[in-house]
């Protein structure tokens, strides 16, 4: 029963625009450029798009504003907003809508200009009422609290966290589109400015402009298009809480459930994954998700990432584009996990290409460890 979405859809086009800084442009402008790039990539046009999946933090009604700006009239519209995880969740919703015949060409898109626009991470308009009086700094306070608890409970160290930042930078140095490509050492990370203890500046993602778009369709059509399809093999979502103070256990995220659901749908497990794209808003996220998604036991994520294990040349390639830490992070990052996964499966990732990548696990995180979405993509051989 749960296998019905496996192979029901494929990513056939991906595009980005405005990565880094896009002065003078707004979110809808660069989103439209990314959409055009993704459709050009697929060999499709905006007139073909009849399903739209969209979320952002700049518009109250992101999907509707996107429809208006692009001049499209889709027959299926999904504006589910679960934070930065939205787009990974949309991949499963799009597969469902495509399979049900609600649409034939699904477009997932996002754009933001927080760097040149607001100059800061724009927090959500509504924040937890019982936390606000204590002046937390969202979203960072929540992740610092998770990191502090993980360190106290499992002995995770700042060096462990720094390993995640170093791996991201090493991958970014292989990606010409990455925003931060300079050399970074363990000492640089450990001595960078303490922002929200125990997290330093280098434990935090970038704040960039940027837009991304993904086009999905059913396999029969995908095979006739310009690019090698990246098939949707399985997905899952999970959420228990909005506020960090309502999270049952700050060292175990709902990725445990979203991942299990995605593996079950795909009929695959952690050992079958060739490449991982894990939403790394902060270094602790990667450690938590490696544990919760079954790549190492709970509490051992710090040791797992040590010695460059997730860096280029290591045992498990994670965030091969450089991630939110060094590639790009325009407020919501989830869509970039799908884009990099697709490029890896096509074999077009250049210097950072993982040889013979057949499976990629994408994981999106939303709000303050509040919503988790997992999607597993694979090549034709994995169907």
């Amino acid at each position, binding site marked *: 029963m749960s296998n019905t979405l496996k192979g029901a859809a494929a990513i056939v086009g991906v595009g980005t625009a405005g990565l880094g800084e896009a002065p003078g442009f707004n979110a809808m402008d660069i989103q439209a450029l990314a959409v055009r790039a993704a459709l050009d990539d697929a060999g499709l046009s905006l007139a073909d798009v009849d399903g739209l999946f969209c979320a952002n933090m700049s518009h109250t009604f992101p999907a509707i504003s996107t429809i208006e700006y692009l001049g499209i009239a889709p027959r299926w519209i999904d504006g589910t907003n679960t934070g930065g995880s939205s787009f990974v969740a949309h991949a499963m919703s799009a597969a469902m809508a495509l399979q049900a015949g609600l649409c034939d060409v699904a477009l997932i898109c996002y754009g933001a200009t927080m760097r040149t626009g607001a100059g800061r991470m724009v927090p959500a308009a509504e924040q*937890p009422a019982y936390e606000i009086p204590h002046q937390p700094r969202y979203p960072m*306070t929540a992740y610092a609290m998770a990191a502090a608890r993980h360190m106290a409970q499992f002995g995770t160290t700042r060096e462990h966290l720094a390993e995640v930042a170093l791996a991201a930078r090493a991958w970014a140095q292989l990606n010409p589109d990455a925003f931060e490509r300079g050399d970074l050492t363990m000492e640089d990370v450990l001595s960078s400015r303490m*922002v929200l203890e125990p997290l330093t500046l280098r434990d935090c993602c970038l704040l960039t402009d940027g837009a991304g778009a993904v086009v999905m369709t059913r396999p029969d059509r995908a095979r006739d298009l310009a690019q090698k399809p990246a098939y949707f093999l399985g997905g899952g979502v999970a959420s228990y809480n909005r506020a960090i103070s309502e999270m049952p256990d700050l060292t175990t995220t709902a990725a445990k459930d979203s991942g299990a659901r995605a593996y079950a749908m795909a009929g695959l497990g952690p050992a079958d994954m060739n490449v991982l794209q894990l939403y790394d808003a902060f270094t602790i996220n990667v450690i938590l998700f490696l544990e919760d998604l079954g790549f190492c036991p709970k509490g051992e994520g710090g040791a797992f990432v040590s010695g460059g294990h997730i860096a280029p040349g290591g045992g498990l390639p994670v965030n091969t584009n450089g991630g939110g830490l060094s590639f790009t992070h325009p407020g919501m990052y989830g869509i970039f996990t799908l884009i990099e996964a697709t490029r890896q499966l096509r074999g077009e990732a250049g210097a950072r290409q993982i040889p013979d990548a057949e499976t990629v696990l994408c994981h999106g995180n939303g709000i303050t460890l509040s919503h988790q979405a997992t999607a597993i993509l694979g090549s034709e051989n994995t169907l």
Partner: protein
Amino acid sequence: MTASPDRPGPPPTGPDQQFQAHVADGRLWLQTCQDCGSAIFMPRILCPHCHSLSLQWAPASGLGTVYTRSVLHRRPKPGDDRPTEHAIVLVDLDEGPRIMSRLPDTPAADIRIGMRVRARIAGEDGARVVLFDPEESKT
């Protein structure tokens, strides 16, 4: 609950209003589920554990344990005389629920995960909040 001299106006009705009214009157009270016995925070209209609508207010012990902490390190700016360190904690109350708060009179470096703390209500009329102090120092 009725209006008090400190709280003019109509009596509080919804769960948030009732919690805040207790705090305004200097008390940390929690909802307790009459069906499954769980103590509940944040205040709600139903029990998040068994989904019962039968909730009643009861005094909390005020005792708890620091579950985790974070410390904002501010870059000093001219004219900003706030402390450069701002520590926030999550406290696991002995009754069960977790609550975000601060230990305003305790240096950030002395706030340890696992330490025992006791609640107090502080702040001006109209803006009272639940804060904590180390419990060890009071024995």
